[in-house]
Every structure is written in C-alpha cells, then in structure tokens.
C-alpha cells in the first residue's frame, strides 16, 4: 500500500465507502483507483456529490458524520447516475 493509503483497520470502512459510491453514485468500478488514491479528484468529487445529496456538510472528506450516514440502512436504488 502507498504511504497515504488506508491502514489495515481502515480497510473495512474503505470497502464500504467504495461500494457505496459505486452502487449509489456511479463511481467507476475500479478498486485500485480508490484504494490507492482516495484523495483523487474523481473520488473527492463523488464524496462531495454524496454529501450534498444526503444533506451533509460538503467537505469531500470521510468525516464521522459522512461515515455514520453511509452506515445507515437505506434503499438499494442508486441516488444518482446511470442504471438499468
């Protein structure tokens, strides 16, 4: 892992975030993109998009409010993006 990558303890959370953004915000399904570069602009943009949609403070960062919201039960239909 790169130095700025997630610690082993963070991996579960990172998986959650990645799947959340993939499933509900149409983040391209490319694990490497996310795990290695969580500060990359597409990911930050998706986090911001999610925060805006869910009425959270738009920081682009995975703060505790954002993580808590992502951990709550929800509908499986995507919030934005393409789907069939």
């Amino acid at each position, binding site marked *: 892992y790169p130095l700025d990558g997630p610690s082993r303890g963070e991996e579960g959370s990172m998986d959650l975030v990645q799947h959340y953004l993939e499933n509900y915000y149409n983040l391209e399904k490319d694990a490497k993109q996310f795990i290695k570069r969580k500060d990359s602009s597409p990911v930050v943009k998706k986090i911001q998009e999610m925060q805006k949609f869910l009425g959270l403070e738009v920081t682009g960062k995975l703060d505790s409010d954002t993580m808590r919201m992502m951990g709550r*039960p929800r509908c*499986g239909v995507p*919030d934005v993006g393409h789907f069939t």
Partner: protein
Amino acid sequence: TFPGTPKWQKNHLTYRIVNYTPDLPRQVVDSAIEKALRVWAEVTPLTFSRMYEGEADIMISFAVREHGDFSPFDGPGMVLAHAYAPGPGINGDAHFDDDERWADDTRVGTNLFLVAAHELGHSLGLFHSANSEALMFPVYKSFTDLATFRLSQDDVNGIQSLYGPSLSSPEAPRVPSPPEPATPAKCDPALSFDAVCTLRGEILFFKDRHFWRQSLRTTEPGFYLISSFWPSLPSSIDAAYEVASRDTVFIFKGRQFWAIRGHEAQAGYPRSIHTLGFPATVEKIDAAISDKEKKKTYFFVEDKYWRFDEKRQSMEPGFPKKIAEHFPGVDSKVDAVFEQFGFYYFFSGSSQLEFDPNAKKVTHILKSNSWFHC
C-alpha cells in the same frame, strides 16, 4: 423522477404480494402494503387493485441475497429493499430484503409500511429525493413517528408531476381550493367537536382534519392529523362510535361510513348508511354511541334518534323517537356523544352534558373541552 421520466400510462394499477416474510403475520403485511399504496393514491388519480395470481403491474416479494435480478441483497442491515421504475416485466416490481427484521412499528426492526411506501414510490416513477424530509429520501429514518407520518410536499410535487393531483384533492385543477382550516386550539372556550368516541380505552375528539387522543392515564392529549392514522378516512367527520366487543370504531360522514380497527381501516368500506336501515331521507348522522352492556347503538339525527341492535345487526322497530323525550335535558342538536364511567357525554357547540342513563337525567353541565384539563 427517473431518467427518461418513466410512468404508468394508466391510472388503475394491479399489485400482487408474491410471498411473505416470516417476521410478520400475513394480514399485517397485506395491511402495510395497502396502507403504503393509499399514501400515493390519496394524492393522485391512481387506484390499485390486488391480484392473487398471474402477472400484476407491481409484483411485491421478499427475498434474500441473489434473487434473480442481478441486484443481490446484502444480508442484515444496509440495503433494505429496492424497486424498479414503471414498465413491463420486472419494472414496477418491489423487492424486500428478508434478512431484515420486518416490523409493524418503529421501535424494533424495520417498519415495513415506511419502506413499502418508499419502494412503491419508485414503482410509480419517483427517483430518490435529496430532501431529507421526503419519503423518497434514500436513508431509512427509524425515528419516524407513524402517528404523524405524511408525505412531504416534495413527494407530493414529484408524484403529481407524473400523474396530476387526486380528482378529489384540493390540488385538483380548476377547483377553487377551500381555505385551510386553522389548527384548532384545545383550550379555546368556543371549541366544538365533530365527533367523539372511545378507542381501546382512550378517547378521540375529532375536529376538522385533526383529532385529539386523550388517555385517562395522562393529562396532555396527543394531537394528530386523521390522515396520519387512517389515510382513507375523510376529514370533518359527522359521527364516530366504538363497538368494543368487535374492537372496531365506525366513522360516519354524509351517507357513508367506515370501519377501523386500531391503525387499520377495514376492507369493504365505506358503506352506505342506508345498509344499516336508515330511510333514504336520512343524509347524515349527527352523533352515535354504542351501549356495550345492552349491545345497542344509538344514532342521533337532528332532534330524533334511532336504535340499532348490535346482536341482530338490524335497526330496531319503532324508531326514530324524539331525543328530548328519552334523554331529558338533551334538547339541543347533538354534535357528538360518547360513554365513560357509565355516563353519556353529549356535546353541543362548546357545551357538554353529562347524562346518567339509569337516572335518565343530566347530572353536570361542562365545557366541551373539559377532558383536556385546560
């Protein structure tokens, strides 16, 4: 709405409950789905009928993990359900994750009615809303109070953008909207009631679109929209009474009456009041009360009353009779009446008469809102 704005091209839709969760009795599931559909039917011209076999527009099912649509569920928590936009085949269908613990309240588990109402919003063509007050917000709100649940304006605007308003709703086009009645104040000395009845040991006081729910164990009554408990009931009802032995409250407005049991409106209603045995000249009931000892129900209409035999389920012969002759002291038009502690309480405008049916006399004159401890 979904991209491309898919919607049903007809206003009458069919639904089928394909299977059931083991978490709840079947009738609770049926009732939650019916209630969820009513939420949308109330504000649109849409109507729904149930199918028991074959392909319905909206197929409702419970499933776990992979269930044949390439969108597997994920076990307990997180994804609760999903649904498809209007269209043929799988479109319009709603799937519920049976690894959740489905419940009919909000204290433990996931409330099926709330999730179903949301999913059926998708089935009708609504996408997720970013408005956190909206039913179509994607995140489940476990703290939602079912007693005060109602669609947000965002939900109403969304669904009406697809199907238009209900033909009988105030939003219907070319029908002037009546002014919204002001919220009544419980301690207003001029307060009158449309109807009063008991329900499972509590007393319900109906006024316009609202009702107060007074428990004898508490001093402060709850105040609710009628539609938040019973979406199919009308506002400004005429009369209500409880038949405790049947755990049923009957609600009257105009020539129709409804039956409710707890939160649930009963199937097969509204019915015509004339099925009870009233002559065609009777167009509304002013008040009603059921005597649980004698199993008789009294219906008050203007200055007369009828008596209905609950055992025989028929109107007794020899009626109507004059109210004032058999209820001495009750000589004003009756707005509402209910029974408590063996007394009948008659409401007329802002006044209330406590009547002893054994002594056949009025024992106290009270303000109508005396039960609210103002």
